[in-house]
């Protein structure tokens, strides 16, 4: 201390120690300036931040605006209940039921595959895997989520479809099953990460209580932890569903694009056509402003409503998870 504590260099403030040489109060001018600057800054920041609100509003407004001519001219019931989609025929027929059912087919097919797989993977990552394995699996999940959808579609049509045709003897490789399998793989990362988060959010204490009563790991997970984490798991499933239903490239490339409801209903080797694929496939060849064009926007609007309501539901469940976490 003495070596460095050269008092010669110390600054003597004793004479003014009791006196503050800078005013502690703002002058009225400074006060006003600060007030104005603060508010201007705040409001400009707020304006920029509300860009996302504006974007959502604009998306709704413009999709509805373009869909409106269709919704007013054609019967909504026919749109929702007829399976006859002949937009270029005379007269035009716009029955989207087959498209809606196509979307549901591939989405539900994907969920049936992805939910059990995703949940058990989440359980593995949260409770079973050693730390090292977790560290390796996280990036893998990220990469799985990062692969562009067009690459998945490319794989579906050029690798999986020929394989299915050859080995499963399907009449066409581009079919419901193909699209569902690929969508399941695409939905996996979402399901795993959200479910794993909600499983980890259930604290150690509950697990320890169960282990303390002599339960095995399987019993602890199935009877205590998973029921406790059900909000997050439901949110995971819904988010996975949103990913699958909104996906375009894969279903366009892999589902075969046949406007039909498979019959018999369980025959997944038949081709279907989804809403997203219809928009992607038809929009390029449709003159702007035609009935067909507006009908495609009506489908887009339907999709938007689907995903928006699913989003609200998932928000609700996720907020419950957050509340549980905060508790």
């Amino acid at each position, binding site marked *: 201390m003495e070596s460095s504590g050269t008092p010669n260099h110390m600054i003597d403030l004793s004479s003014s120690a009791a006196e503050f040489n800078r005013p502690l109060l703002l002058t009225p001018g400074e006060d006003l300036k600060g007030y104005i600057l603060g508010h201007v800054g705040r409001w400009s920041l707020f304006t920029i931040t509300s860009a*996302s609100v504006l974007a959502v509003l604009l998306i709704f407004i*413009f999709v509805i605006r373009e869909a409106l001519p269709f919704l007013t001219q054609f019967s909504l019931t026919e749109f929702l209940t007829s399976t006859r989609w002949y937009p270029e025929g005379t007269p035009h027929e716009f029955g989207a039921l087959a498209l809606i059912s196509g979307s549901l087919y591939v989405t539900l097919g994907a969920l049936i595959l992805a939910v059990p797989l995703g949940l058990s993977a989440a359980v593995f990552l949260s409770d079973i895997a050693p730390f090292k394995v977790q560290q390796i699996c996280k990036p893998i999940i990220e990469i799985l989520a990062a*692969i562009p959808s067009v690459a998945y579609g490319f794989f579906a049509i050029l690798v999986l479809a020929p394989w299915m045709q050859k080995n499963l003897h399907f009449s066409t490789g581009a079919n419901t099953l193909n699209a569902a399998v690929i969508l399941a*793989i695409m939905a996996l990362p979402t399901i795993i990460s959200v479910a794993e988060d909600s499983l980890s959010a259930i604290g150690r204490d509950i697990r320890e209580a169960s282990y303390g009563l002599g339960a095995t790991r399987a019993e602890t997970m199935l009877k205590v932890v998973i029921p406790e984490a059900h909000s997050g798991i439901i949110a995971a499933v819904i988010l996975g569903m*949103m990913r699958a239903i909104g996906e375009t490239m894969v279903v366009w490339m892999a589902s075969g694009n046949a406007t039909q409801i498979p019959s018999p209903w369980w025959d997944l080797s038949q081709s279907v056509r989804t809403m997203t694929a219809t928009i992607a496939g038809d929009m390029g060849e449709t003159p702007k402003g035609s009935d067909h064009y507006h009908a495609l926007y009506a489908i*887009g609007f339907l999709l938007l409503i689907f995903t928006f309501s699913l989003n609200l539901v998932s928000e609700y469940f996720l907020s419950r998870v957050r509340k549980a976490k905060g508790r």
Partner: protein
Amino acid sequence: MKIGYRQAFDKTFTITAGLSVFLMVMALVIILGPMLSRGSKAVFFRGTVEFRKMQLAIFNHGSSDQVQAETARVEKAREPVYELLENFQIGIDVELLTDKTREIYRELGQQLRQMDVDRETYAAIRAKAKDIRDTLSDILESTDKDYVNQGIEVILKLSDDPDFKNTVAEQFFPLARMYGENVKNIDLTQRDQYIAALEEVKDALRKLFGPLPGESTPPMPKDRYGATRWDTAQQSLHQLLWAQAWVETKPGESLEKISVRRDDPQKGQFAGTSLEPLFSLVENNLDDMLQPEFTIYWRYFLDDWVNSHYFGGVGSEIIGTLLLTLLSMMFAVPLGVISAAYLVECADENMVVKIIRTCVNTLAGVPSIVFGLFGLAFFVLFLFPRLNMPSKPCILSAALTLSILVLPVIIRASEEAIKSVPQTYKEASLSLGAGRFRTFVTVTLPAALPGILTGIILSLGRAAGETAPILFTGAVAMGPQPKSLFDGVKTLSYSSLDIATGDRLAMMAPHKQYGVIMTLIILVLCLNILAIIIRWRVAKKLRGY
């Protein structure tokens, strides 16, 4: 329940869970494996002399001296092949022969006139030549071998005729002799089949070695060169060697389609003909004729494509992708980071902020194709005409659409990053008398930068890979590079789609098909790995602290 059952159940549970992770990893390997391995063939392959010729002619890469020397060498090696082909053609392609005879006859006339022979000799020689010509034409049309042989004998008898000495007419005799030779082993009634098969052979040879000698340069660049790669050369060789034939395997039963070597001594199409040696000649000397060398075609990532990806690389797509994503980031990054800063630093948790958050989440959940619809309806059809800009899909509208798509990603990542800056940092800065704005810019932002950067890099990858939003807002499959903000743009993602579903030429070159998607995947993976590394280093630094 017995404890044994319970333990067995527990084991099963553990194994099932582990298995599902294993399945997931396998899915990744199965999906990426074929695309990366097949795509890598676009860069690593055995290139033939044809490849080097093509590179020199189209892209001006490589040394012209070397290529010329090589060309001379392979042409020498290919010479016997073409010779065999030509000789055989004489025997089989009647029209060619007939034309040739007529031409000789005509030339003879001209020659005689120049030679100043008297009228009678002239008439006699012409008459004799006419005889030969007619006989030749006759036997060419005939399918009766004996008749042909007789005719040839008759003609050859005339070969000693002094009148024909030193005239063009001498050419009749080798022609006739060769025809006689060729016809010996040929069933003349099947001549049409020979002609069809010969076309197949010629086609295969064109695919192997480029246009045959004497043919004019084809209009399509892809037809101007033979097999540029050793693997396609092998395919063309197979096409050359093997013919599809309907064969009666068992008497009385229906025919079966099998592959037969064209020079098979029993069933081969060309068995016993003068063309027979060609096949083994090509098969055994293909190395000399194509000079394959292991090539790393790294310019694949720089070169423009030719003939819709049949030749060349993906340079223009890479540039287009980079232009588009960087442009969209220019819009999205400032918006996203400022929004995140506001949400974390300024906003209390009131109703307005809740609405903003819900909107960000909604935006993240909107299907990508709906972004495409919105971009078309809003930017292209609504906004641009009102700002006196061309109302057509272009790179600007695509970039704006993509920027809205990645906005929630950037907001969320930046928010997390800013939140994770320790409170003590901010306190230290505030206690030194910095204002809130100053504290944010000088302390919080630098500390949050790696996290924000990670988010930006990830959304860069997302923007590069998205296809649906740019389908109708600015992506094109062909065309020049964009020169202004109002041109269409070629991107890797859109080309992948086009090349996988629509492009017939590309289907003939699978390595190019897979090459495009490989490039896209590598681009996205590199961005992701970069993000993972940044995050890992930050984590390490924080642990050290």
